[in-house]
């Protein structure tokens, strides 16, 4: 509370965070099923999705398991998206090439990007380099999300395109968007 007589300092409306934008994009597009393999960057998003009864969300043992689950659910009329980190994406080429793409499943993936812009684990930086070549070799739609002011447009349009074209999409969440994970010990 400002002291009496002091005019309040005008404050800009609090900016939505990237994870609010992601959650709202899922909701707006009726994506209710969100299996995931967790990642530090995704912690708040995962917590908020758990807290919202709109969603059915749970961890899976492996990323490809989550892909199978959302594929089955979509064929049965329920939309889903999978959350993972870069190293999890690296386990997926077989299931992308033998399930999601040939069966025309609109697999929506949010991949938090490790391996760049301050990575401290050499293995993460190497596995991160495999992601875009894999996506490109399968001619898959993918976007690297770096700016908050673009993120809602990219997420919403990409989800709609995946569903209408029945083709998978990967939304890569850059450290430029999320802040990333840095060495702090």
């Amino acid at each position, binding site marked *: 509370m400002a002291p009496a007589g002091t005019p309040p300092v005008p404050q800009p409306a609090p900016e939505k965070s990237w994870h609010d934008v992601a959650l709202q994009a899922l909701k707006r597009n009726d994506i209710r099923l969100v299996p995931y393999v967790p990642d530090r960057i995704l912690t708040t998003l995962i917590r908020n999705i758990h807290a919202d009864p709109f969603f*059915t969300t749970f961890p899976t043992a492996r990323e490809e*398991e989550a892909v*199978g*689950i959302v594929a*089955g659910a*979509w064929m*049965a009329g329920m939309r889903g998206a999978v959350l993972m980190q870069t190293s999890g994406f690296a386990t997926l080429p077989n299931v992308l090439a*033998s*399930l999601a793409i040939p069966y025309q*499943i609109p697999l929506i993936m949010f991949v938090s990007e490790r391996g760049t812009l301050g990575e401290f684990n050499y293995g993460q930086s190497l596995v991160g380099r495999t992601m875009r070549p894999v996506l490109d070799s399968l001619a898959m739609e993918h976007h690297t999300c770096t700016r908050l002011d673009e993120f809602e447009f990219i997420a919403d349009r990409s989800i709609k395109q995946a569903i209408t074209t029945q083709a998978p999409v990967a939304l890569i969440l850059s450290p430029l968007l999320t802040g990333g994970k840095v060495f702090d010990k």
Partner: protein
Amino acid sequence: MSTAAGAPVRNTKVMSRFDLTSRLVAKLKHEEAVIGGIGNTNFDLWAAGHRPQNFYMLGSMGLGFPIALGVALAQPNRRVFGLEGDGSLLMQMGCLSTIAMLKPKNLTMIVMDNGIYQITGAQPTAAAAAADIVAIATASGLSNSAWAADEEDFERLVDQALSASDPTLIGVRIDDKPGVGATRRDPAQIRERFMLGLGVREAL
């Protein structure tokens, strides 16, 4: 209980995959969904007579139960059966824990256990030596798991599964024969027909 050599003692009859699949399909009167795992498992599902509610996997080994779980979550009022080989399940064992956590009452898993990778040249699976897949399922939290002693017992377990209030896993020992049919390898059409069969789509 194990033998001195470490191999599990089995009192279950060695049966035919095609015969058991046919017996299952004959019991499905309410448009139950069936997910056929990679290879012989879905070849025999195909050979047992195509149904609009059948889905046939052509790749993505190990994802039969996860796909079936997705169907079960999306349509909780429809009974869903997943058919997998033991080799496939070994590849994605974590899905048993996921299913036990979620407890979809409408999901039944049937594991066709011949102890071999039949389609690649009948090499023994790691589980063939000493592991017990039903015990693994039980320990994963799927308490409603059992080996079928023979064909009659299998039918009894399927009948129970059709009205179960917990996910069910049925292990069956099968012989080393290949599947008796071959699924038409047309993924887009398999997917579209399955969606029609589940009432998600209308035909163009």
